[in-house]
């Protein structure tokens, strides 16, 4: 995967959320209202905590499978 421009080794076919966790990347975003760190929580597509940019689209990382070279950005609109 390309995570914010960096290469991260991941197993193809597992969810992007699982791959990030396996790579030690636990903090995925900050909450918009309180600015507190958040990571994947329900892993079944319900809580929306794992929402990141995948190939430029806001997606739930737990619902998208890793494929070769998939681009993931954790720097959402609230990062800068």
């Amino acid at each position, binding site marked *: 995967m390309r995570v914010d421009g960096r290469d991260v080794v991941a197993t193809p076919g597992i969810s992007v959320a699982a791959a990030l966790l396996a790579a030690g990347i636990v903090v995925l975003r900050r909450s918009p209202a309180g600015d507190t*760190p958040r990571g*994947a929580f329900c892993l079944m597509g319900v809580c*929306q905590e794992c929402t990141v940019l995948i190939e430029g689209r806001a997606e739930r990382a737990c619902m998208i*499978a890793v494929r070769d070279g998939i681009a993931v950005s954790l720097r959402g609109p609230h990062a800068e």
Partner: protein
Amino acid sequence: MKVDLAVLGAGPAGANAALAAAGHGLSVAVIDENAAAGGQVWRAPAPSVTRDDADARDGAALREKLRISTVEHLDSATAWLIARDDAWRVDVARHGRSETVTADALVIATGAHERVMPFPGWTLPGVIGLAAATILLKANGVLPGQRTVVAGCGPLLSLVAASILKAGGTVAAVVDLASRAEWLGALPALAARPDLLARGALWRARIAAARVPVFHRHTVIRAEGTERLGAVRLGRVDAEGRLVPGAPEVAIAADALAIGHGLVPDTAATRLLRLRHRYDAASGWVAARDGTLAGSVARLWLAGEVGGIGGAAVAALQGRLAGLAAAQALGRSAAAAEAAQLQAGIARAGRAAAAMSWMMRPRPAMAGGITPETIVCRCEDVPRAAIEAAIAAGARDLNQVKQWTRCGMGPCQGRMCGEAAASLLAPHVGGRENVAPWTGRPPLRPVSADDLLGDFDYADIPIPAPAPP
């Protein structure tokens, strides 16, 4: 797309409903936002994961049956709107655009999601759901962390702890709201399911062999850390889930906490349709259905956990029953004998399932562990104190709490905070059964505006001639 029957959800319930109806000659579309059928318990493992347990086999068999059937499987399809005009209409976002499925009959089989009662620190990265951990382990082959505390209630505790150990991980502790005696009391109801008993015994043996400390009648008081989880603090509770004052606390270093307090039926679709719901002590608010699983409006059936937590075996049988009922209602001859057989099977399997969902129930005094600063609504960062302030100012139902505080207004649409908000409101209105769930609103799941617009182009908008000046 136009079909006889649309089925929402391709878990054990929905997939079996689709197969049964197609077997009796209906044209069927089954809609699910996952890439493969199976739902939660039979979720398809990634190609890198090799498994040969009963759930993996059942899931693979189900997917094979679907593949060779006439059922149209709309995978990776998020249903965001359901409505009824002359026929049922389900709008789904799929592959970057929205499409409409119309159908004469509808089966809703949206299953359940997890309940996690809030506690200080539960928003820290590294804290995940207990059922969530089963997905990591079973479908992805990934451990929740280096050292995991497994906490909450119900049979998933031993399943998750044993799976972590089997995968070579470390379980720092198992923290169970239930006492040993409560577990022993649940055993007789499992007599009809020797397979479940044997699995449970195997999990416990693995946990004991690894000398994992097991804390019965304990709960997580707090998850500690700044940017991510570093430690978990435990305390003793009574049978109602109330912290025992003065009991010593235990701190355990851990980088992962898998915690869950049972399952909540996903009634977003049934609430959107304004169906009749009822309160059930073990499952909470569920969509009401009769003995043939018909919902409170015509040509609609409710299969699986959307109508009450019952486990995979019950969900699968209910799915078949709903599929048969739909086929019969649309004029196909379905054998009455099969329906009776299915109903008997559901009653048999239901006993073990009821015992397990009882072990998973949230304990009545658990809301006491939510401190005033604890975030209840994760999406909108609403603390308990804000909800209490709204209640003190007169909010008397969940919708009012939502309008007052934004609790439940974020992208999860109240799925993560609904149970906690309801239990904070309950003592003010005479109990949980008096706290009706949020009013259902579209979209059922967040959907991107791009998907709704599809290939829409501004240049295509017909612009009327300007009015004369």
